[in-house]
């Protein structure tokens, strides 16, 4: 079916997820490419997070094939893998809509835990670590270095020793991104990263995501309700409604798709905006 010359990083085919009689996802297919940001949008309860849960092994899909083509390790069928293998081997990492950090650990510790697999291997499953062999010490230093790098990138460097649970909500969201990046993913799945951010902070997030896409050359899957973020950075957008795909196109096309407006965006009734405020609120690069 795939018409593209180069196979996509992620191919989702006929994904269906039923919970008893409830069909949360109904025969959804789409693809997400390397070095692209693919957004999944849709009304509350449309099945967006369920797609993530299927991709990352939290759920076993009822039907469907989820193929991830790792640039160095070959293809993985995610629906057949154990949950813990999906980040470790296939290189898929995610963040959570309802934040799931280790709240009583420090910010830095949260990022070290994310690198547990590599550290365990380097420690010879504890033994070399206990002996303090140089290989392990190097691995540990690398892990701390990578954690530092992502703390700096996410603007959390001065909070490294805070308990994660004491960070403000928006900072916890950034820490989740840093934690995901510390696992060196090839596909980063972000579940509402801009929730709880003010417009300025979402603009910073936008920049961070664009830089990750360029510099890390990975694919990003993005669930988000902030349309200024979605329309600005997505290369393509998949729209779900009641578990079905109702659109799959570029931001420009999706924005004007009558089905999407009816199901999700709503009519633009912001005519009450004073013009100077409306101008401020319009996403950059979009006149009107």
């Amino acid at each position, binding site marked *: 079916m795939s018409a593209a010359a180069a196979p996509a990083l992620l191919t989702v085919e006929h994904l269906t997820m039923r919970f008893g009689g409830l069909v949360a996802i109904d025969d959804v297919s789409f693809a997400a490419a390397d070095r692209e940001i693919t957004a999944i949008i849709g*009304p*509350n309860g449309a099945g967006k997070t369920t797609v993530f849960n299927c991709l990352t092994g939290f759920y076993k899909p009822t039907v469907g094939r989820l193929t991830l083509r790792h640039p160095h390790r070959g293809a993985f069928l995610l629906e057949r893998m154990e949950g813990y293998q999906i980040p470790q081997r296939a290189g898929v990492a995610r963040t959570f809509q309802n934040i799931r950090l280790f709240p009583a650990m420090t910010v830095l510790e949260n990022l070290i835990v994310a690198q547990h697999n590599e550290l365990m291997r380097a420690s010879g499953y504890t033994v070399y670590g206990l002996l303090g062999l140089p290989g392990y010490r190097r691995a540990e230093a690398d892990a701390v270095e990578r954690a530092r790098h992502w703390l700096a990138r996410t603007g959390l460097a001065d909070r490294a020793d805070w308990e994660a649970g004491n960070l*403000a909500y928006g900072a916890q969201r950034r820490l989740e991104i840093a934690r995901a990046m510390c696992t060196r993913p090839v596909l980063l799945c972000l579940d509402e990263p801009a929730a709880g951010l003010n417009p300025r902070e979402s603009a910073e997030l936008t920049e961070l995501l664009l830089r990750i896409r360029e510099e890390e050359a990975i694919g990003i899957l993005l669930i988000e*309700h902030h349309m200024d973020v979605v329309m600005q950075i997505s290369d393509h957008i998949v729209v779900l409604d009641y578990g079905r795909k109702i659109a799959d196109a570029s931001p420009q096309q999706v924005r004007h798709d009558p089905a999407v407006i009816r199901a999700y965006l709503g009519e633009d009734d912001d005519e009450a905006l004073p013009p100077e*405020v409306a101008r401020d*609120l319009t996403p950059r690069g979009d006149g009107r």
Partner: protein
Amino acid sequence: MTPAPAQPRAMLAVEAVHTFYGHIEALAGVDLEVRHGEIVTLIGANGAGKSTLLMTICGNPRAAHGRILFEGEDITSLPTHAIVRRGIAQSPEGRRVFPFMSVFENLQIGASVADPTRFEEDLERVFGLYPILRARREQRAGTLSGGEQQMLAIGRALMSRPRLLLLDEPSLGLAPMLVKQIFSIIREVNERERMTIFLVEQNAYHALRLAHRGYVLANGRVLMSGSGQELLANPEIRAAYLEGGTR
């Protein structure tokens, strides 16, 4: 030093409140007030202390210094359940619904301090505001989508018939159409039921337009206050909280 009159001017008065997490001072002397029948919005960057203030009003964490008065009564050292019984309810940031209880049970818990004879009426009101909750009535709350959990958290707070409703990011995780709806629900509850509302929002534009008054919090202190219109028109506020670009 005469005792406060029967009808104090402010419903809620926060006076020089300091709150700490360990050694970190999250609130560094906050003064503000919410008057009867008002919608008051608190805006500020992440980490400014907005959620900490709402939680301190509910007694967890406790204020280390300063006083919090609700209708003239000092509630600073009351336990949380006693504060809720005075007529304050909060819809917390990040939902915090009871995941293994049904939607209905979550709403029952919200109603536990309210007049039991009005339970059915209150339930109908919440289902009227959020019809999806009626459809999901017997479903475990943890299996709801994020946006549905947000609606449940607000519904649960309304079930206690609070006189002061604290909303921490009510638009969080809601689809664009529902964001517009949530603000009209807030206005409706305020106008029709005279419910006083203290609101924390990142969606500063909508929140300020809705509010009678607003406060700007930065680094644990009130930086500025004024009517919603004044704050919206203030260029500094616009630059810091409304404009998208970092330029």
